[in-house]
């Protein structure tokens, strides 16, 4: 007993992460390596790394047990995890406990605050094979849009009210002061110059509760996010300016103003990676309408291609119509047959269907919606139904090409 009491359980256990930050795609494996160092004492050491929700352990173990003898123990362990949902996750803290070999002394429990940031995105959709999408694809390029934003030329256009997103250096202080003295206007005035023409695409992503049908990791919203990223990439690669508006029941919640290039793509991805679908049962009348109003400053004059990614239901179709009407207010009608507003309709019931019977029921519900879709078509809106379980977005883009 005296001999056992002279021996202590390990006191200084150091657990370090060999990686601090990693980025991965949904359903891809990530290896998490840990280095464990036990300097003193004798006994049993357990190390447990805490995993956040939506992670699946695919290989190895995040709970390890080690024996520390007389000599210093250093061991590198690793395990593999698979994330089932996009997002920004933080792993840890790492919990460890050290036990006396005969449990004669109190077990030491401690945590090692080793942050590990894991960014999980959807796999980018490859649309490189579509060489002439303008001609054949159901997803058109914005033919008649003229840019309102872009590289500024030296040609003066007008003085107008300041809008969120305008650079401060464009404020015309003299005009602002004159206006304030004469009319008492509070908004600053900005100089507007002509911009180099870039075609503009606006993507309106619906995050309302209608999009949350089905399991949390495979609901329509997750596919909508994937489609948004894919479409943004598709248009940005074709030198279009892409803007994103994520809206919910309370209207627009996140807006990425239109811009071009790779940086814009990563800006959009950054917004998409952390956005979550709304939970609840309320549908707001003003959701899409409000979102369009918030972006009107950037819609006016640019005549953009507007893509609404949503799921049309009997509950929300009136509000979508309101939103489409609002879009039409700020855009000019096109002479060509190409439609300037597209609704990518996610077939939510098909996504949520678990078996053949439910699939048949979803088919019936979809038939019921046909008249709603017809109403949209009459308004000059192109509705593309998408069942992501049967048809990839790439396939959707190619469908016109195949039929041709």
């Amino acid at each position, binding site marked *: *007993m005296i001999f056992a009491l002279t021996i202590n359980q390990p006191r200084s256990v150091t657990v370090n992460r060999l990686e601090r930050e990693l980025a991965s795609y949904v359903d891809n494996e990530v290896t998490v390596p840990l280095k464990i160092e036990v300097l003193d004492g004798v006994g049993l050491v357990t190390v447990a790394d805490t995993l956040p929700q939506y992670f699946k352990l695919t290989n190895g*173990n995040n709970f*390890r047990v080690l024996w520390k003898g007389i000599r210093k123990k250093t061991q590198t362990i690793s395990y593999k995890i698979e994330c089932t949902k996009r997002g920004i996750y933080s792993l840890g803290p790492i919990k460890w406990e050290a036990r006396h*070999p005969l449990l004669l002394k*109190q077990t030491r429990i401690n945590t090692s605050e080793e942050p590990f940031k894991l960014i999980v995105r959807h796999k980018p959709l490859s649309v490189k094979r579509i060489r002439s999408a303008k001609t054949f694809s159901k997803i058109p390029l914005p033919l008649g849009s003229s840019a309102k934003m872009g590289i500024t030329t030296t040609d003066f256009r007008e003085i107008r009210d300041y809008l969120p997103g305008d650079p401060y250096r464009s404020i015309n202080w003299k005009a602002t002061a004159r206006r304030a003295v004469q009319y008492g206007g509070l908004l600053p005035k900005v100089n507007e110059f002509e911009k180099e023409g870039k075609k503009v695409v606006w993507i309106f992503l619906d995050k309302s509760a209608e999009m949350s049908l089905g399991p949390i990791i495979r609901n329509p919203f997750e596919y909508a996010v994937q489609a948004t990223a894919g479409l943004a990439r598709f248009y940005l690669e074709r030198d279009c300016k892409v803007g994103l508006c994520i809206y919910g029941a309370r209207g627009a919640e996140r807006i990425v103003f239109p811009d071009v290039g790779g940086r814009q793509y990563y800006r959009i991805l950054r917004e998409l990676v952390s956005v979550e679908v709304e939970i609840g049962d309320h549908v707001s009348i003003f959701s899409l309408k409000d979102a369009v109003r918030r972006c009107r400053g950037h819609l006016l004059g640019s005549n953009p291609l507007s893509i609404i990614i949503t799921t049309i239901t009997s509950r929300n179709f009136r509000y979508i119509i309101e939103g489409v009407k609002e879009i039409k207010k700020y855009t000019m009608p096109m002479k060509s047959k190409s439609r300037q507003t597209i609704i990518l309709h996610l077939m939510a019931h098909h996504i949520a269907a678990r078996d053949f019977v439910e699939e048949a029921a979803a088919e019936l519900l979809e038939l019921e919606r046909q008249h709603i879709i017809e109403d949209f078509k009459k308004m000059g809106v192109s509705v593309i139904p998408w069942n992501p379980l049967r048809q990839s977005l790439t396939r959707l883009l190619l469908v016109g090409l195949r039929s041709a």
Partner: protein
Amino acid sequence: MESITPKLNKIIVSGVKICMRLNYSAIRSTEFLVALLMICSSIYSLLNNRIYDFFILFLSRFLQASFLSPIYPFLPTLPIVILFSVSLYFYAMGRQKHLDGIYAISWLIYLPSLLYFSRVDWLQVLGLPINFQMFETKLSFAETLIIGISLVTGRILLFYISQIREIYLEMLGRGAEKNDLEHVLPGMMMFTILLAGSSTAASLAISYLIPVFRHLLNSIITLLPYPYIIIGVICLTIIPLCIIIYFHSGASD
């Protein structure tokens, strides 16, 4: 999942390098061996004791007069079979309290032999018509001592091995891999065996060294103005008190 291939890993326990893996069945087998050793050694001491003969004689007289006379030829082996069966039942139950039962049975049947070597005959002190001479054993002092020490060692081993087994099950329940545990168990087992071995060695050393220093110790004790019983009681109070104080100091740490 990656397949786990059994490998012999080097494990260092107190500077001793060993190459082994231990699984649950190995722990149970060790428990069985220890329990068997305890029971066998205590039964051996009982068989060599006069009280066993008295017991058999009493039983035979009782059985002759009853309807159980057909089992009379098996009478000498009957208590042994019962003892083994009860011990086996306790082992099969496997919990700490059951293993304590094995220890208690072993001590119960070993105790007469130990009392025979007692210098203080409590039965005579209490004025009873019997004394410890009725517990006469054919075993020598050394044999009795070794059996006693083996029982204490067995008790320590059983206690800590069952503790290791509980840790094993707890860790499995918490999601640890069997492979990890099979590498941890030998370390714990070796530590326990080292502890039990050192305790045994220390007990044997003290037992054999005491007669050597008897005269020296006697001269010291006779100088004390109190009877040795009072000194003994004081010592027995102080030792657990020191252990309790030590544990409390460890807990606050």
